[in-house]
């Protein structure tokens, strides 16, 4: 099945989204043939120009926001070239394509930064498929603004519930008032998520996360979720999605809060409280 720009734009016109992405030729990070990577950048720009031309003649499409795709694999020069050229076009924002699960963690942040450093500060930067919440912070530090909920589905599919720190209030305010005071260490060592498949939760009648106000935590216990997972009941996924999604949204609200503070130390403190495992953090 061939998807042309024209065919794709038909779909966009029928869907009437608020924002859509320009069709792109994105190579995975496995692709290291320079010729192929260069071709993907050229082709993506050509697609974008065709998209812009079609959009000009169509009122429905003009009312939709357009994101230009920044591609270029793992090649710094191509990433910069893709970003620089895309900036020259009249787009409403940018989507950084081509970061997948197999990505080498060392260059994750530097590749991202090479792409975003060229983009105008005032334009929103989107990214897809960030599968672990720790990588969200890495991406934010590298200049990304908007994410999808891929990490929520990943956690849920593994029977996991998010437990990482997600409130800024006890971070920003307490820090200002109690500088130098010893912090309250929670009885349990903090972890970013718990695996409800573990037998140790079979008799744990506490909510997934104390203090969480999601539907699952208000109505159900860890023991119940464990039971649903063991018996392979559909409700397990439904309830875990409710918790993980609520938790992530609160995390983003807190992150926005913390980033409003002029002090970098507030952000670093928030990040340390999140307790993401080492291999998720690339800073």
């Amino acid at each position: 099945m061939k998807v042309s720009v024209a065919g794709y734009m038909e779909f966009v016109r029928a869907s009437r989204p608020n924002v859509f992405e320009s069709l792109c030729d994105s190579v995975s990070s496995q692709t290291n043939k320079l010729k192929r990577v260069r071709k993907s950048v050229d082709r993506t720009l050509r697609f974008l120009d065709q998209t812009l031309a079609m959009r000009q003649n169509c009122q429905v499409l003009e009312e939709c926001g357009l994101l230009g795709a920044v591609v270029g694999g793992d090649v710094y020069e191509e990433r910069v070239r893709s970003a620089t050229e895309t900036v020259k076009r009249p787009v409403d924002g940018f989507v950084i394509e081509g970061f997948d699960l197999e990505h080498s963690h060392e260059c994750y942040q530097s590749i991202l930064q090479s792409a975003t450093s060229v983009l105008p500060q005032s334009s929103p930067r989107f990214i897809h498929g960030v599968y672990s919440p720790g990588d969200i912070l890495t991406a934010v530090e590298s200049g990304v603004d908007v994410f999808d909920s891929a990490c929520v589905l990943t956690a849920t599919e593994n029977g996991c519930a998010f437990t990482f720190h997600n409130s800024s209030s006890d971070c920003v305010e307490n820090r200002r008032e109690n500088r130098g005071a010893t912090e309250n260490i929670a009885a349990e060592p903090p972890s970013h998520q718990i695996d409800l498949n573990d037998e140790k939760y079979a008799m744990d009648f506490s909510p997934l996360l104390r203090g969480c106000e999601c539907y699952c935590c208000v109505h159900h216990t860890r023991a119940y979720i464990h039971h649903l997972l063991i018996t392979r009941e559909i409700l397990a996924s439904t309830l875990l999605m409710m918790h993980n999604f609520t938790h992530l949204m609160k995390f983003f609200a807190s992150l926005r809060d913390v980033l409003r503070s002029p002090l970098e130390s507030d952000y670093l403190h928030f990040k340390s409280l999140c307790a993401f495992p080492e291999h998720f953090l690339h800073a």
Partner: protein
Amino acid sequence: MPVATQATVKGLTFDEVRNAGAETVLSNAYHLYLRPGVDRIRDAGGLHRFMGWAGPVLTDSGGYQAFSLGALRRINDNGILFRSHIDGSEHLFTPEVAIRNQQLFGADIIMCFDQCVFSAGDRSDVRAAMDRTHRWARVCYDTHAPTAYSGVQALFGIVQGGTIPEFRDESTELVTSIPFDGYAIGGLAVGETKEEMHRITRQVCEGLPSDKPRYLMGVGSPEDLVNGVALGVDMFDCVLPTRVARNGALFTPTGRINIANRRYGDQDVPLDETCDCYACQHYSAAYLRHLFKAGEMLGPRMASVHNLRFVLRLMEQMRDAIAGGRFVEFRDRFLGAYQPTDEQSRQTQKHRWIRERGV
């Protein structure tokens, strides 16, 4: 009563179950005994607290599933010795054990431990199962008492006797001689014809006291509910609404439809505009069809919400009609419009889905 087999009505939150109009839910002692286990539910504070449902709960005794699901080792006057369908471990259910388990689960209504036979059983098998059921009914009645953790529980007796009229009369007489809080008609919806089911239901209901609830176990489809009420039944339980929903079969006033059918691809309005369920209030038939085609679990979930609401609303309408003295008119109008699924395909589908899905 929607069936929360393993402490969940498959795929639905209990808020969704309540919003569909449910008052009492049924859970299966056999499944809960195996997982999560009686002790774990007791330690959670009982089944209501374990699963997060504050409304009434009815548990069955476990006898039927030990018989139908577990590999049978032995049945005698003592009880049923079976192997778990999960891991092959051996377990013994007796009337005392069945009552004790149900006390620890803490349901509001509990059932006697009985012996089931399939409809094709011969006369002497049916006789033996019935006699044993009667002996066990007396044991259950004598064992049953309020406990600190279960409080007062209602105990229902179960009438057996297969499809043999003399046996059914005998069983009705004996079971009603014990002052249970309600009476169930067991041993139906196990492969007999609809005509036989109606005949037996009518016969037994005529012998049951009119001031205690009558419960037809394991029934049924919308037309079964209406016919059952006409014959004197008050309570039903059946996995049918949710099981067929998960397979894309949805109830409408004119009969069951298959949402995967191409004609629903163009239907941009709700499946049933007379339905007040969440699915019909928010989604078009075309969207529901898309969900099933795409393998999205929201499809089976919304179909389950719809089918549950359909049958629960049907019960509400019947209560209303009875109170208003116009039940016969309601029954005739409903059955006149509702085309039941033909028997052959119904049985074929049922067995295929049971094989595919297991529980």
